[in-house]
C-alpha cells in the first residue's frame, strides 16, 4: 500500500454528542493532504485520534499498515492549533526536552536542533526564555519542535496563524521541502488559498461526517460545470451578443477587462464542446481570452457544506 495513514470507519462520541461518525480517510505517501471543514466539524477530534491523544470508540487507524500503537508517536509530528511552550523555560532546554519525549537521544536531538536553528538563523535564542520572545519568534521554535524528529507523518493544524506574511512563506516553503524529502503532511486550515496552492489531496468533514475526499484535481474536475469564460473583440457588440445568446446559454462575466469588448460566461449544455464554441466564435469575432472555469476550493467547500446541511 502506498498510504502512510489509513483511518477506517472511525467513530467518536462524547456523551450524547457525536464528534465523528464512521469517518474513513487515506493519506498517500509523500502527499499533502488537506483536512477541511467548518468549525466544530470534527477535524480536531480526528487529529487527536491519529495522535493517540484520545481513542476512537470504534474503527481502526493504521500507520504504514500497522495498527496504531503507542511507539508510533515518534513517527508523527503534530502542530496543534492550540499551541504554546513553557514560558519560563529556556528555548534550547525546552526543545531538547520535547525532542527526548518524542524518543530522540539527547545527542541526536542536539545535532538536529543545531541544524534547524542555523537554518532559521536563531542560534542566539538558545538561552532565551520563551517569554522573552515575540509571538512570531515563539512560533518558529514551535515549528522546529514539531519537525525536528523527522517524522514521516506531519500534522499541521492552522500552521500559519501567528506568522507574518514573510514568515508564513518561510514555513510554507519548509512544509513543501519536507514533503519533497518524503514526509507526508496532513494540513488542516481555513485558508483556502493555501489549500489550493499546496494540497494534493483533500477531505471535507462536516457535522461529524466525511462528505467528500479525493485528489484535489479529480474533485475539481468533478465540480466543474462546463463553464467557459471568453473575451471577445468586435465592432458590433449588439449584433454579436444577440447572435451568441440565440445559440448558447450565456451571461456577462463578473470580471471585466480592458483588452476586450465583451467578457462572457458560457455554460455549455450536454453534447456541446469547447471546440464547437471556439469554432462558432472564431467566425464572428476575435477571441482574446478563453478559459475553462474551474471551481476554487473555496467554492467547492461552500457548495458541499451548503448541500450537506
Amino acid at each position, binding site marked *: 500500500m502506498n498510504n502512510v495513514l489509513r483511518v477506517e470507519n472511525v467513530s467518536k462520541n*462524547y*456523551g450524547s454528542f457525536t464528534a465523528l461518525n464512521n469517518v474513513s480517510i487515506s493519506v498517500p505517501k509523500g502527499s499533502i493532504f488537506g483536512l477541511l471543514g467548518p468549525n466544530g466539524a470534527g477535524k480536531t477530534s480526528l487529529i*487527536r485520534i491519529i*495522535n*493517540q*491523544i484520545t481513542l476512537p470508540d470504534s474503527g481502526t487507524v493504521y500507520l504504514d499498515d500497522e495498527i496504531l500503537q*503507542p511507539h508510533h*508517536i515518534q513517527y*508523527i509530528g*503534530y502542530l*496543534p492549533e*492550540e*499551541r*504554546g*511552550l*513553557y*514560558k*519560563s*523555560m529556556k528555548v534550547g532546554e525546552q526543545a531538547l*526536552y*520535547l525532542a*527526548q*519525549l*518524542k524518543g530522540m537521544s539527547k545527542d541526536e536531538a542536539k545535532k538536529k536542533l543545531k541544524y534547524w536553528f542555523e537554518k532559521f538563523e536563531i542560534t542566539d535564542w538558545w538561552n532565551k526564555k520563551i517569554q522573552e520572545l515575540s509571538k512570531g519568534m515563539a512560533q518558529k521554535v*514551535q515549528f522546529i*519542535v514539531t519537525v525536528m524528529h523527522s517524522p514521516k507523518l506531519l500534522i499541521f493544524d492552522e500552521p500559519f496563524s501567528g506568522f507574518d506574511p514573510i514568515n508564513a512563506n518561510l514555513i510554507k516553503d519548509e512544509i513543501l521541502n519536507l514533503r519533497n524529502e518524503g514526509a507526508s503532511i496532513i494540513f488542516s486550515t481555513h485558508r483556502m488559498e493555501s489549500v489550493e496552492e499546496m494540497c494534493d489531496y483533500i477531505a471535507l468533514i462536516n457535522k461529524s461526517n466525511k462528505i467528500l475526499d479525493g485528489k484535489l484535481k479529480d474533485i475539481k474536475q468533478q465540480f466543474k460545470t462546463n463553464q467557459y469564460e471568453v473575451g471577445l473583440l468586435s465592432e458590433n457588440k449588439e449584433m454579436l451578443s444577440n447572435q451568441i445568446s440565440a445559440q448558447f446559454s450565456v451571461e456577462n462575466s463578473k470580471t471585466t477587462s480592458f483588452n476586450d469588448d465583451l467578457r462572457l460566461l458560457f455554460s455549455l449544455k450536454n453534447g456541446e464542446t469547447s471546440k464547437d464554441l471556439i469554432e462558432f466564435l472564431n467566425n464572428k469575432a476575435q477571441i482574446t481570452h478563453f478559459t475553462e472555469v474551474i471551481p476554487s476550493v473555496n467554492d467547492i467547500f461552500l457548495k458541499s457544506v451548503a448541500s450537506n446541511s
Partner: protein
Amino acid sequence: MDKLKLIIKREFLAKVKNKSFIVMTILSPLMVVALFSLIIFLNEKNAEEIRTIAFVDESQQFTDAFEDSDGVKYINLTSLGIVEAREKTKEFYYGLLVIPKTDSLSELSNNITFFSNDTPSLTVLSSIESKLEKKIRNLKIAELQIDVDKIKAIETTVTIDAENFSGEKSSKIGSVLRMFAGGGFGYLIFMFIIIYGTSVMRSVIEEKTSRIIEVIISSVKPFQLMMGKIIGNAMAGILQFIIWMVIGGILLFAITLYFGVGDVSSSSAQMAPEMVQQMQNSSNNDLQLILLEIKNLPILTMFFSFIIYFLGGYLIYSSIYAAIGAAVDSETDTQQFMMPVLMPLVIAIYVGFSVIENPHGPIALAFSLFPLTSPIVMLMRIPFGVPWWQLITSISLLIVTFIGMVWFAAKIYRVGILMYGKKPSYKEIYKWLKY
C-alpha cells in the same frame, strides 16, 4: 518509563530552580531560629528589668516577709501612711501593696490589696502571694502553738518516676516535648500537602494556559504527564524536608555543644539512668533535659513515617489538585473545588491537636486510620508510640486510597486538560469520568 523519568526530571528541576523554593528552603530554618532567639532574647531582657514594689504594712507583722528576689525589690513605706505612699508609688514604683491592720489572721488574708499603674504581671502577683501565704502560715503556726518540727516531719515531696514497660524513662517535659514534636510534624505535613499540592495544580494550569499541553500529550500519555508532575514535585518536597532536617540537626548539635550536653550525646547509647535522675534533680538543667528528651524521641521512626505519610497523603491530595487544575482554566476558578479538599485537612489538624492530649483514645485511632486525615493525625501520635498493627493498617488504607484516587483523578485530568472555555460544574466532571 524513560519518558516518565524525563517528565519527573523536568518537573523537579522546574520546581527546585524556582527562586521561591530556594529562598523558602534556606530561609525558613534560619527564620525559625531567629524567631526563637528573639523570644529568648526578649525574655532575658524582661528578666533584667528590676521592679520596685512598695508596701504599707499597718499590721506591722510582715516587715521581714519581703526579701528582694530576682527582678523584684521591696521598699517599706509604712511610715509615710497610705495616702502619701500611693502618691509616691504612682510616680516612682511598680506597685503598692497595702496590708491593713486587723486582729484576725484569717480576715487579713482576704483584705490585702495591690495597687499599680498598669495591670500587674501574673508572676509578680503570685510571687507576692506566696510570700504572704508563707508568712501568714508561720504566724498561724505560732498563734496555734503547733510544734514546728512536727509539721516539718509531716511534709513530704513525691516525685513519680514514670517509666514504660520497656524500661524507657518518661518525664513531664518529655510528654510536652512529644506534643510539640507530634504537633509540629503533623502541621508540617499539613503545610507540605497544601504547598506541594497547590504547586502541582499550578503546574497543570500553567500547561493549560500556555497551551503546551496538547504538544506534550501528543508525545506522552496524560497519565504519565500527571504522575511525572506529582512525583517530580514530591521529590522537591522531600528534598526540602531533608535539607530542613539536616539544617535542624546541625543547629541542634550546635546548641547541644554550646550548652555542654556534648558528652551526654556522645554516649547516649549507654545513657546512664543515674544521669537522667541527676538531671531531673537539678532544677537548673531544664534545657539539658529538653535536649536529652529530644534524643529520646523515636526520631528515626518519625523521620521515615513523615516520608511515608507525606508521600501517601500528598499523592492522594495532589492527584485531586491535579484533577482540579485540569478542570479549570485559571487559578481564580479553583475556589469552588478547593473547599471540599481543604476540609478534611483542616479537620485533621483540629482533631490532631485534641488527639495529642489523649493519643490513644478512640477518636485518635479512628482519624489516624481514615486515609484523608491519617497522614496528619497519625504523625501527631507517633511520638507517643503507636502499635505496629495500627501503623500498618493505616498505611495500607492510605495506599489503597491513593491508588483509587490517582485512577479517579487521571480520568478527570485526561479530559480536563483538553477543555477550554467554560468552568465546568461537578455534574460535567462526573460525565467526564465516563468518556
